[in-house]
């Protein structure tokens, strides 16, 4: 529920910033569109537009392949270090 409230205003933050290209090596920038368990956040919660959501999903999958962002997080990892390596 807390997450829903966090994303109450619905507008695309990437459109507002006029982002044309997202670099997958910049893992900090991807944090906005990742959940606590490093899942890709759905559009209905983040308010991203379709175009930017498509870009982000591709970029996050690239970052996962490059071991910059984890694929999955076990319960232990969630408790000990949420977003530790991205800071």
């Amino acid at each position: 529920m807390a997450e829903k409230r966090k994303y109450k205003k619905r507008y695309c933050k990437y459109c507002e910033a006029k982002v044309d290209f997202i670099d997958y090596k910049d893992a900090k920038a991807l944090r906005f569109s990742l959940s606590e368990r490093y899942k890709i956040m759905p559009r209905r919660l983040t308010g991203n537009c379709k175009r930017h959501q498509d870009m982000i999903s591709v970029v996050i999958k690239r970052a996962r392949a490059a071991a910059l962002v984890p694929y999955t997080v076990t319960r232990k990892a969630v408790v000990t270090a949420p977003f530790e390596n991205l800071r």
Partner: protein
Amino acid sequence: MRNYENLVIVKPTLTAEEIQASIKAIEEIITSNGGEIAATSPMGMRKLAYPIEKNERGYYHVIYSSIAPSAISEIERRFRINEDLLRFVTIKYDTNREKVAFNNMVEKAKKLAEEPKDQTPVTETPVAEAPTQTPTVETEDPVATETASE
């Protein structure tokens, strides 16, 4: 010729010299297959998001280059044979928007490579020495300001 970006993760168990040697070998693979390296940017030793081959850390290195599309399969085949590499990611920059971003990243990497050239030999030495050197720089600065004020 197309613009490509090769991200390479080298094993952390190697020494600093061996890592540099293997990176040179990797760049040679690209150049020998007709690629032109535009810029390189070392991201350095990083913690991996998940262990690869039981390694928790890895040395990241990015190579921006323009390569003929037909040579990519041969380059990737050579990367797979190389046992120093934990992982490699090859990304194509083809559309106009991506090309602009590619050129921006190349320029950034070139600038970074030019500016801290004096520092690169320092970073090649073991990481433990880096924190000891930073305080000396801090102590030097107040001395300089004091002399200036006097």
